[in-house]
């Protein structure tokens, strides 16, 4: 009977292809937009993810998310270090600064300054050179994407010179830092040097990065807040806080949500209409099958098999297109770097598509179940 369902479905190739490509298109919309949305949200907290040795972020109480830091007094670092449970704490400087290449290209860069002594706070992912190279005078590290933007077509190499606020900076390392939400070029330098490149006033320290000891990051964070009055969050909580800020204060979720809902509507409409046409065209055949002894449960099984086959093939094509998009479009040097197709988006997409197909098939199934086999004797 399953084979019969298959033969019935593909007996009309135009409808079968319409059904499959409708599902594929819905899958593509849902998973591609879902993955882009997730990638964009993950970009907002890429810096937190990159600082792997750190599990505690301390900031001014007014700070709501990573990209809007408020400078703190240097004394705060000592106060945090004095809190019970804090194993170590280092300063971090974060700002945006204009840059200029000797060739005359200008751009804005996200400049990260990390602890001079421990070098904690820099990304761990170096493609060329190492974090130790940044101890040299005027040394900065640039991310691969930034290098390609500033020197397109040139092989990635150290030794290039930049101007940051009219001050010389030499590229001594290339990183594979996580993409930032908005800025294209990410520079790393020692704290003291970064501050000199982009003076921000009386206070410079953007964040205090710390490691919690006994009790864990959340407990120690509460203790830091209680004793210093500063806002302290575990890395995980700060990531969530940052993502939640973007979710609540930007139109990003709505925009992506609308496209995903359109994908679902397209899926339901295409599958529903095609199944409806298929059932309409085959109503007499279903009547014949019922007349010659096919039970309702066998017919339901047959139709669901048809739907399942179409859903699997359609989903396969759709998810393949999504995977191909991220493989070929989201390369490390492209504007879409950092975007990928998480497995759980694919799984969620499959769940949604199966639900869409089932919902869209219900109306058709009902009609088939109610079809009077006596239809076969009508002219």
């Amino acid at each position, binding site marked *: 009977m399953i084979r019969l369902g298959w033969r019935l479905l593909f007996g009309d190739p135009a409808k079968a292809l319409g059904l499959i490509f409708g599902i594929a298109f819905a899958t593509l919309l849902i998973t591609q937009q879902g993955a882009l949305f997730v990638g964009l949200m993950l970009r907002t907290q890429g810096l937190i993810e990159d600082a792997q040795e750190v599990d505690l972020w301390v900031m001014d109480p007014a700070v709501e998310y990573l990209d809007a830091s408020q400078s703190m007094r240097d004394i705060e670092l000592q106060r945090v270090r004095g809190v019970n449970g804090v194993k170590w704490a280092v300063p971090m400087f974060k700002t945006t600064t204009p840059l200029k290449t000797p060739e005359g290209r200008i751009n804005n860069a996200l400049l990260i300054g990390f602890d001079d002594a421990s070098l904690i706070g820099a990304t761990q992912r170096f493609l060329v050179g190492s974090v130790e190279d940044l101890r040299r005078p005027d040394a900065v590290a640039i991310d691969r994407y930034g290098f390609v933007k500033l020197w397109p077509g040139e092989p990635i190499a150290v030794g290039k010179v930049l101007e940051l606020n009219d001050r010389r900076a030499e590229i001594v390392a290339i990183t594979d830092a996580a993409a930032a939400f908005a800025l294209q070029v990410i520079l790393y330098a020692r704290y003291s040097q970064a501050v000199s490149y982009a003076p921000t006033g009386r206070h410079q320290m953007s964040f205090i990065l710390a490691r919690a000891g006994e009790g864990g990051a959340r407990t120690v964070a509460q203790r830091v807040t209680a004793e210093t009055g500063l806002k302290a969050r575990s890395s995980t909580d700060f990531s969530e806080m940052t993502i939640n800020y973007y979710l609540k204060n930007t139109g990003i979720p709505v925009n992506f949500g609308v496209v995903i809902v359109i994908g679902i509507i397209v899926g339901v409409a295409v599958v529903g209409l095609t199944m409806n046409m298929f059932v309409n065209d085959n109503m007499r055949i279903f009547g014949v099958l019922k007349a010659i002894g096919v039970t309702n449960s066998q017919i339901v099984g047959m139709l669901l098999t048809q739907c399942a086959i179409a859903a699997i093939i359609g989903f396969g094509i759709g998810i393949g297109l999504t995977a191909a998009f991220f493989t070929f479009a989201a390369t490390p040097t492209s504007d879409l770097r950092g975007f990928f197709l998480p497995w759980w988006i694919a799984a969620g997409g499959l769940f949604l598509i199966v639900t869409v197909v089932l919902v869209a098939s219900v109306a058709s199934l009902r009609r088939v179940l109610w079809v009077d086999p*006596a239809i076969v004797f009508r002219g």
Partner: protein
Amino acid sequence: MVPASNQVAVRCRGIAKNFAQGGHATRALDSIDLELRLGEITFIVGPSGSGKTTLLSIIGGILSPDDGELDVLGVPLRQLPPGKLVRFRGVNVGFVFQQFNLIPSLTAVENAALPLIIAGRSERDANAAASELLCRLGLQSQLSMFPRDMSVGQQQRISIARALVHNPRLVVSDEPTAALDADSSHVVMEILRTLAVTDSRAVLVVTHDSRIFRTGDRVLRMEDGRMVSEEDVYS
């Protein structure tokens, strides 16, 4: 127990059927008494709207009567729950339709094998049995052809093969020759006569086609939902 040849295959007593139409009930069948015997071809004739097809559907187990007793092959159909009724039809009744109702995406063999596949036989066995029957019907060269590539006469022969392949004891047929020319009609009815009657089946044919009466045993005439006359073809 299935009756032996010349025994009664179908017994109707006081069968009545109403259809709702325009807010009120229309009497389609009124107190039909009828017996069909194994080994016989029985024709039902009458004007359009006389209830022929309704009676055929009831005897074939597709429609339920509103009143009366209906025994088919010793089984009181009105007492069967819907699921068992479907299975009863699948095993014991063969249908031949005016419009053939073949499945366009299946070949001749696959169409003819359907009842066996529905009954749970393997595809290979079912196709072998269907092929054998189609060869007996003269379609040995058309086994792998699709219905659209065949003449109407050939399509009707496939439909007859589908009706007989699972060896049912009752065959019901609605206007089997309506779409056929005289020669094809003759061939189709001879096939039905040979395959159905000689294998001790009861065959009920609803028709307007008087050319085929001589291939049957009895002709029953209906008007306005009632059985009005019966004649023996050979009398």
